[in-house]
């Protein structure tokens, strides 16, 4: 009797398990598709997830698994998985996209765009064109970069120094930094200006009317290039920015939040870190970069969503890309606070500004910046990416240390750029 009962229980359990499996299987076979999406920026994860949630609500048969890989491991992991013919269905790409296109790892999106009548006019043209390679469009833009200046208004108030005005110029910046320096404690830092070649020096060169590369050749030896180098080194030599050799572990965002730093050039991808700081509204005010000879500019780069050529669900992947870069997707992403939308929609920019409303003057500063930007050297000329570590360590390091003149530095920069462009 006992044996029979136990057998019955076992049979019943097995039947139940089998029917559950059958139910799961029937739901599965009803057309559920699992897609993976790989990104690198932890600050943007919340915004991306928000957009994904909305996409899944509209497409209940498509499940998205979002994978955020630390930025310094992103390409290593991507290379390993794509090289093995696997990898995520959809992913972010940046300046390195051309290498992936050359390696045949990305799916051309031209036909998908054409079939769905997607207008690329809805996106920043500079970013769209970057991913038009070998006659095909490989990516749809998701965000772009813009550098603005942020100052700690509370700190200026405490020091009794008049803060910078939205229409300020380079000389104003130097004057204000000197005033701050004179009034604050010696261990504090008045100013952070990006001293790297690829961002700070190149931007200032462009603002001075020069170029970094012209006719596929390095032209930093021009008057504008040399002047830009001298101007930024001047900030260091006057003690207005931290000595470059002491800056390798200096973080301008945390220094602004702690009040150690009075004002800083901050890229758009870091603005959300400031707006999320536990400080009263309006502590941070945003203005455009200071003008030189009446003009200003900052470098930009843009990220796109691209599709894995080996994706088993290309139609669904395209659906996801289209949604994430649409006005609705861009707005939801921007509500997360990080990643300035590359979608030209006013609603997307408004959502980004609203998500960062603790930062005063943000909208005006961005509007004054976006149209004035130029494509970052490594973005427009991806071949120069390989030269950057050498430029930073072997050329810019000795220049800021004072062992090499600006003219010789500019010449070395041209040599390394030309070598990389060959």
């Amino acid at each position, binding site marked *: 009797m006992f044996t029979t009962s136990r057998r019955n229980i076992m049979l019943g359990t097995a039947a139940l398990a089998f029917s559950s499996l059958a139910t799961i299987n029937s739901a599965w076979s009803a057309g559920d598709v699992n897609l993976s999406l790989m990104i690198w920026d932890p600050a943007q994860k919340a915004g991306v997830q928000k957009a994904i949630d909305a996409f899944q609500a509209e497409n209940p048969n498509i499940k998205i698994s979002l994978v955020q890989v630390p930025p*310094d491991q992103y390409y290593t992991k991507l290379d390993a998985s*794509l090289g093995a013919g696997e990898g995520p269905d959809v992913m972010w790409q940046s300046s390195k996209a051309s*290498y992936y296109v*050359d390696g*045949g790892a990305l799916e051309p999106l031209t036909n998908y765009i054409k079939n769905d009548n997607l207008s690329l006019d809805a996106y920043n043209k500079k970013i769209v064109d970057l991913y038009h390679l070998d006659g095909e469009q490989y990516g749809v833009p998701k965000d772009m970069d813009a550098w603005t200046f942020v100052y700690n208004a509370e700190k200026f108030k405490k020091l009794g120094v008049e803060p910078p005005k939205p229409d300020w110029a380079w000389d104003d910046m130097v004057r204000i930094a000197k005033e701050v320096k004179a009034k604050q404690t010696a261990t504090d830092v008045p100013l952070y200006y990006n001293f*790297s070649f690829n961002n700070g020096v190149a931007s200032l060169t462009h603002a001075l009317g020069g170029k970094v590369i012209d006719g596929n050749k390095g032209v930093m030896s021009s008057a504008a290039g040399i002047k830009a180098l001298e101007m930024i080194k001047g900030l260091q030599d006057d003690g207005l920015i931290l000595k470059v050799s002491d800056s390798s*572990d200096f973080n301008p965002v945390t220094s602004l939040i702690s009040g150690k730093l009075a004002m800083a050039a901050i890229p758009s991808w870091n603005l959300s870190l400031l707006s999320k700081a536990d400080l009263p509204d309006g502590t941070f005010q945003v203005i455009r970069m200071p003008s030189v000879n009446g003009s200003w500019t900052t470098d930009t780069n843009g990220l796109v969503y691209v599709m894995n050529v080996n994706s088993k669900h290309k139609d669904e992947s395209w659906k996801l890309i289209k949604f994430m870069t649409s006005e609705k997707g861009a707005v939801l992403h921007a509500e997360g606070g990080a990643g300035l939308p590359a979608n030209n929609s006013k609603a997307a920019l408004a959502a980004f500004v609203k998500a960062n409303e603790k930062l005063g003057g943000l909208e005006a500063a961005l509007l004054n910046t976006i149209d004035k930007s130029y494509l970052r050297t490594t973005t427009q000329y991806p071949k120069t990416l390989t030269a950057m*570590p050498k430029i*930073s360590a072997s050329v810019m390091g000795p220049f800021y240390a004072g062992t090499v003149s600006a003219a010789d530095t500019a010449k070395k920069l041209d040599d390394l750029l030309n070598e990389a462009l060959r």
Partner: protein
Amino acid sequence: MTSTSTLRLNGADPTPSRRPLRLGSLKWRQATIGYLFLVPLIAGLLIFRFYAFGYNIWLSFTKAGAFGPPRFVGLDNYRRLLDDSQLVIALYNTVKFAAIAVPGVVVVSLLCALLMQYRFRGESVFRAIVFLPAVCLPTAIILVFGWLFQTQYGLVNAAFHSVGAEPMSWFGSETGVTAVVSIIVVYLSFSVPAIILYAGMQDIPSDVYEAAMLDGAGPVRRFFSITLPLLTPSLFFVILTSTIGILKLFDAVYLLLPPVDHSVSTNYGLTLVYYYYYLAFVDAGQRGYAAAVSLFLLLLILGVSIVLLRLQRRFVHYGEDG
């Protein structure tokens, strides 16, 4: 000779019988099972060591990226090795760290091993402290050291400041980077050598010390005339393994000077393995050249090991039996 002749005279064969294994016999089945147990290990060795090593050699003659077939370029990558200023910097730093950290590891581990010889209050705590770096995650230790030496907020500079000294830019100067990296490497590497040297000290016969004491030798004399010479086999092992380990230095410099930052200080800490990693996994389309750099490192380690093995004949005493 005598014993062999005796055995032969007695009719016994000194060599084991070599009968062929019969298919299906017990011995055959036992041998098969034995070899089956070896399959995972041999397969792992074949795929992850021998195949990978051979593939790396082939890769060094190609131009290769993450995707697509590698393109044969002959000796181009090896020619480039001769004309690469970054490789010279990486080689200089690698040798520099080895030259500083290997003696550091030997001295610290020897001191710890000596102290472990004595019985004193808190000796178990001391032993735990000595072995702590070996059981802690190296990444965590390196990051903690990074924070300690941080220029603006680090405890070390705060201590300098509190005694009126000028804070130092630890990661902004060659001296600073060299000092921090060497300290970390020594700290991460001294535990196991200390245990090896301690074990080596246990093998030194106590009667040698007793005889020396009767002859009036003090502790210092006993250390230099008995401990050190009789410890040379262990010391040699420690020096050889530490040198090879430090020539492959990567984690400390990678975590302190990450490649995404393009820091102006990278050249102060760039080692050969870091350079290889950058070329192979951060830069694009440089895997062929990275393979050539890795083979250059192999030759360097091989050369240093040969020199050390030659020196062993002169300086290492294996006792009367050895």
